[in-house]
């Protein structure tokens, strides 16, 4: 397919603005009263990674959508392979000390494969979902895409990296939605997870289960489907307390502290409490760039990575927060536009999947800083310090720009249906 590529400048510009904003905040995060060399110089390394990211971006924009579709399977296999390697040879770092998220060679951490795996999974999932011209109709249709996500999800959970696993789930449902799956089907697909979550409380779970039975009775799916659904929910409801017992103490603590940060104000809850104080004390316009006292005096944890958005809130105030969230919203709207106008279902799904992935990142990370989401330790795209993630983000931007370039002027113009 030979087309004159028209670069999606607004998309690239939004991504560039977010990255610039992010690096400025990473710089500020290093400005503390008692300097920490690693954090103070993080912005320089982040700039270096940006250069790498831009290079990757330019290369990726040269890759056609057909090539990407062809590359989906190899990328997926490599991605899962790397996740497996990480599980075996990985090391932890920072807040994620107890996880095995990094691949380390000769003592140097060279990256978090899960960041690239997210893109690979989006590609693979898009390939599977776009293989038919029909939307998934029943649970059986979800088996293949389900397996595509389940494998990396299990590998990530085994690290254990709760945040990234959430991203996979979010991406899966975003892409199901985009492929035209009905709300009921997605409800059925997600129902065992809800049973799992509610399983802790018999009353809640029972209510949910009865509700589900009513829906099944109304929708009247295939008998097999209905039975599988009900059995799955039963099993999950019963398994929940057992699995809760299997969770690592720090995971349990994170969930409990999310519900009540004051239960542990000096440790897990401490981070959230200090983050909220930082954000709340920022007020309308903030304490001034680099001037945040919570950050400067070390009360704010992980100020250059997981809690970087608290620095935005503290130093640039509600206005700075509004600007950042507006940029993210513009990014999402732009990607939705790209997905809507994509030339084919594969690229449309990839675009929407990437947006879904970032969306989960933004909501969970930003929500965590202000205690509307649990602490899962997932980074904020374009902001949080981290080389692999910035690189992965710009690879994704490259793909999106390419998809946009190959897309139609207006939806339906090419008459593909």
């Amino acid at each position: 397919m030979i087309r004159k590529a028209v670069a999606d400048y607004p998309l690239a510009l939004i991504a560039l603005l977010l990255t610039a904003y992010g690096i400025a905040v990473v710089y500020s995060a290093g400005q503390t009263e008692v300097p920490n060399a690693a954090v103070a110089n993080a912005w320089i390394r982040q700039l270096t990674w940006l250069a790498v990211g831009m290079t990757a971006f330019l290369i990726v924009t040269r890759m056609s959508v057909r090539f990407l579709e062809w590359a989906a399977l190899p990328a997926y296999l490599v991605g899962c392979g790397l996740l497996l390697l990480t599980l075996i040879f990985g090391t932890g770092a920072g807040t994620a000390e107890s996880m095995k998220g990094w691949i380390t060679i000769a003592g140097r951490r060279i990256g978090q494969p899960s960041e690239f795996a997210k893109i690979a999974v989006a590609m693979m999932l898009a390939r599977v979902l776009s293989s038919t011209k029909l939307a998934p109709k029943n649970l059986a249709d979800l088996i293949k895409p389900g397996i595509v996500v389940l494998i990396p999800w299990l590998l990530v959970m085994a690290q254990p990296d709760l945040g990234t696993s959430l991203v996979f789930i979010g991406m899966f449902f975003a892409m199901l939605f985009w492929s035209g799956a009905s709300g009921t089907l997605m409800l059925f697909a997600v129902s065992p997870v809800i049973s799992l979550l509610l399983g802790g409380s018999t009353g809640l779970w029972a209510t949910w289960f009865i509700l589900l039975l009513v829906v099944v009775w109304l929708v009247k799916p295939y008998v097999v489907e209905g039975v599988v659904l009900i059995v799955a929910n039963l099993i999950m409801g019963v398994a929940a307390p057992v699995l809760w017992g299997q969770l690592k103490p720090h995971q349990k603590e994170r969930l409990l502290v999310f519900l009540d940060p004051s239960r542990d104000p000096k440790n897990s809850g401490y981070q959230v409490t200090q983050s909220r104080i930082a954000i709340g004390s920022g007020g309308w316009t903030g304490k001034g760039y680099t001037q945040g006292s919570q950050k400067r005096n070390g009360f704010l944890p992980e100020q250059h990575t997981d809690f970087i958005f608290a620095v935005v809130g503290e130093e640039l105030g509600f206005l700075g927060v509004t600007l950042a969230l507006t940029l993210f919203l513009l990014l999402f709207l732009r990607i939705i536009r790209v997905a809507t106008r994509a030339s084919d279902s594969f690229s449309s799904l990839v675009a929407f999947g990437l947006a879904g992935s970032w969306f989960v990142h933004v909501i969970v990370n930003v929500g965590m800083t202000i205690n509307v989401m649990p602490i899962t330790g997932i980074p904020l795209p374009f902001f949080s310090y981290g080389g692999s993630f910035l690189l992965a983000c710009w690879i994704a931007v490259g793909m999106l720009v390419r998809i946009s370039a190959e897309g139609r002027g207006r939806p339906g113009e090419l008459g593909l249906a």
Partner: protein
Amino acid sequence: MSLHPNELQRRGSSAAILASIALGVLLAAFFRAQVIEHAEFALQSDDNRLNEVPLPAPRGMILDRNGQVIAENIPGYSVSILSPKVDSLRATLSRLSSILPLSDSMIEVVVKRHKAAPARPAVILSDASFEQVSILEEERNRFPSLVIQAAPKRHYPDSQAVASFVGYTGEINEAELETEAYKEYKPGQQVGKAGLELQYESVLHGKDGSRFVEVDAKGRVVRQAGAARPDSLPTAGPDLRTTIDLDLQRFTATLFDSTMQGGAIAMDPVTGAVLAFHSAPAFNPNDFIGGISNRKFQALRTDKRKPLYNKALQGTYPPASTFKLATAIIALQSGVVGLGDRMPEPCRGSYKFGNRPFRCWEKKGHGSLTLAQAIEKSCDVYFYQLGLRMGLDRLLEGGHKMAFDERTGIDLPQENRPGWPAAADYFNRRYGKGNWTNAVTLNLSIGQGENDQTVVNMARFYTALATDGHAVKPHVVEKPVERTKLFDLTPEQMAGLREALHGVVSTRGTAASAALKGVEVAGKTGTGQNPHGPDHAWFVGFAPKNDPKIVVAVLLEFGEHGYLAARVASKMIERYLKAAIIQPVNVTGG
């Protein structure tokens, strides 16, 4: 997937709306925290970074009646430490112990102080030496959580000479913090622990100020907070003007040489102003400032001569013959005797009561004496008979009326209550009915037996003798005069008693060696029986006889002879009266 354009457009719109709502909800959460609840979070943020460092107020100075300094403040340094956690505190302290002499037990004390008030700097050294401060300042970078500041330090220039009434200061303890009186106080503050420092703590303390330092999460001091929360400057406590005559006080202290122990009080018989107040041996109050070392404190505690026990205020001793005036007054008031009356049995060295002889101190005997002569000679046999004549009940009742069972209410803490039986029933309860005889009356008549008086209460009693039968409440800090009528005698009787007391301190009396040239001293010696060792020596008196300016009470533990106490007293009188003539008392004082 289904890629129908209309459907795609619809899903795109749904996704856009969902994204907008989700980010809108997040933004609303930020609005709530940053705009609506901003003030509360701003406060928490300031509380996080700003630590209050107390600025102790300089205590009010304690001055003598002429404005001479008894207690003052000299420059000192305190070293304290900020720490967010006990673990890091211990770690820092153990590193500090390479520089400062910090024992493990001292580290525990600091940890305890930290736990009592985690947000405030825990005091490590409340009185650091200049050398220690210099070393710490050099090592400043290694210990950024240290707070080193100038702290006024209490100093008593006359040290031991003023210890008995001025007391000392020290760090407030947990027990004190729990009491109502100290509810405004915070751990680590210095408070009065004894004497005037304790009695007038609320006056002397002043108002502590505070400054704020900015600290990081690890308790490292980053900078002075400056305008974020302005410092509040401490207000010094007002000076406390006492009635003490520092010259007489110093002189009194010198009269007790290293072998002597006991108490001495000099006071104005009319106003109750305490001119001198001493207990020997005295401790050095400066040792307590900044925390006394355990070794020194144990030495003071185990010293057999009990330097921490105030012999003028807490010590109670049988008043012995100094009490005979009380016996005489009770008898005179009840009309059983006149100043010129003699007792049926002349003194032959002892008095036989029942089968038991009760001895007079003068083995040779005094012969037949009038009451006035009996006072002069301190004849026991006369007073045995006088006591029997008026009876136990009258004696006990009279003693009660003259407040021999009451504290004087002097403005010093820890005054002990003197002991005087309330009624004859006391003996029933103590010995059982019928198990005691009128021998107790004989003993009480001469100031022995169940009679334990403080030095300050005996001085108080003699202010009534020195004036018109009104005793005055002693006070160390200027106060309105509070006089209580103890007895009612005719002017002739008063004059007669004074004459007799003057006779004591004359060639005729028991304290002849205490007589002064040019000053008529009136007073009474006493030798109190002491089951624990040599007798205690007493002298209580006043001078000049006809216009008393000073009442003095002296007790020498194990002093054996009353005249030894009388010599101390007469030297005090001499010093005061001479000084009063040469250097008129500064009446603007107080």
